[in-house]
């Protein structure tokens, strides 16, 4: 009995230590970046385009490029991803075809982003002659996030209790009405999580974007302009030793951006779902 309590204590210490270690290491990354980068964030840094390869000026064009590319990629992927998920979860019975779709989605979700970059580079940039621009990058990213979006949305739809569907059908609902009014609102939280995840991946992606969207520092004029996203900009500044302070500033802004997206998305979902759902 005594031994059991001794072990209990040891286990507690080890587990607490592991958790604190995780916090400490991860905290170190974030705190260091913010410590070095926050002082760089000024109005000029946010609103001026980079000059002299990024040694001087701000990073406004990379912010715009990042947001545009992410927006387009997610806008392309959402209808296909969520539509496919609804098809898989609601419109088909389990058969060999659904299993193949699901298996390929799950496999493709784990494929390294560099492979998507390779694909996007040869397919969109070279073969379709789209050249390096926001559109090529966004299409590549849309392909990359599609499998994740299908998977997360399908899981969310399947997690909706079957009783909701039965009730809706038993009250004379058609399939579409049942999906739109009973299933979708309940699955929204999970679907939104998948979308947030995808947005985060687009913002954070470096290799695939560099290969497809280019690395131009000009302010993009249209979707056909080449651009450099913040992550790529950070990579270039840091690894080519162009400007450490500006690299830190870009990294800090990336961290803040991802944090804000998480917070805002959670708030939006809570607001929309919270009204209809008690829990």
């Amino acid at each position, binding site marked *: 009995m005594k031994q059991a309590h001794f072990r209990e204590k040891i286990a507690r210490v080890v587990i607490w230590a592991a958790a604190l270690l995780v916090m400490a290491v991860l905290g170190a990354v974030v705190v260091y970046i913010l410590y070095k980068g926050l002082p760089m964030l000024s109005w000029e840094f946010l609103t001026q385009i980079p000059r002299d390869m990024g040694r001087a000026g701000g990073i406004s064009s990379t912010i715009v490029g990042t947001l545009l590319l992410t927006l387009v990629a997610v806008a392309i992927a959402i209808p296909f991803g969520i539509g496919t998920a609804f098809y898989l979860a609601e419109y088909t*019975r389990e058969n060999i075809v659904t299993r193949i779709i699901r298996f390929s989605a799950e496999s493709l979700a784990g494929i390294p982003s560099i492979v998507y970059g390779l694909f996007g580079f040869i397919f969109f940039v070279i073969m379709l002659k789209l050249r390096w621009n926001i559109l090529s990058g966004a299409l590549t990213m849309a392909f990359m996030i599609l499998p994740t979006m299908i998977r997360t949305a399908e899981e969310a739809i399947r997690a909706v209790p079957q*009783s*909701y*569907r*039965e*009730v*809706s*059908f*038993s*009250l*004379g*609902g*058609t399939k579409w*009405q049942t999906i739109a*009014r*009973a299933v979708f*609102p*309940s699955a929204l939280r999970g679907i939104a999580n998948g979308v947030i995840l995808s947005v985060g991946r687009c913002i954070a992606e470096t290799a695939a974007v560099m290969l497809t969207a280019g690395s131009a520092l000009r302010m993009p004029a249209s979707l056909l302009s080449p651009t450099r996203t913040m992550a790529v900009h950070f990579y270039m500044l840091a690894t080519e030793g162009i400007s450490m302070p500006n690299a830190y500033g870009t990294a800090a802004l990336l961290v803040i951006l991802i944090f804000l997206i998480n917070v805002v998305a959670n708030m939006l979902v809570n607001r929309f779902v919270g009204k*209809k*759902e*008690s*829990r």
Partner: protein
Amino acid sequence: MQPKMVINHLEFYYTKKQALFDLCLEVPENKILALIGPAGSGITTALRALNRLYELTPGARAAGEVLLDGKNIHDGDVSVTRLRRRVGMVFDVPTPLPMSIIDNVTYGPRLQGSAKKSKKALAALAEQALTQATLWDEVKDRLNTPAMSLSGGQQQRLCIARVLALRPEVILLDRPCSGLDPISTAKIEDSLTKLKQEFTIVIAPHNVQQAGRVADRVAFLLSGRLIEEGRTAEVFANPRDERTSDYITGRFG
């Protein structure tokens, strides 16, 4: 009087397993018919055959006739959504949808695209339905709160009100009180006896006593076969079949 619904030689299968065998049964209008029998006798299946809800179950299949006002509900020209509005259903566990009380009650009527109802009309409909389900007084001040915040008994009466708001002709209740306390059960049974003046009711009670309390007629099913059917008092006093009397007196099931 002509029966509201007639089940004619209904055979029912789940993939390969047969669940109902040559079931013939009449559902009298403005009466309460109770389907009784031990678990696995096909009672839920029989109820779900009456509004074609079984079609949601993969592999489920029915052969034979189910007539509603003399019209086979499996006919090609029958709209299944309209059928389900005419034959409403209450499930064994309270199943409020994750929305407000008022939205739950008006869920069915709001689906009817052709007759887009005004807010006022919907509110009136909801009040009537909630009143009939004896829930109005308890919820009239918080119609916009989530339905999940109600107690189990209130949730089940809300589900009854939700069906009533469709103004159906037949109401199917599948063990509606199985998880409820005696007081909630009494409230629901009370409202049922009032509702039968306006509606035809088929109930699968969660025990024999409930059938005795509410039903005008009972049908005893065993392993997917109808054993006997008749006026509740007669079946309970003089069951013709030994198995029926064994079941009623609690020797099995």
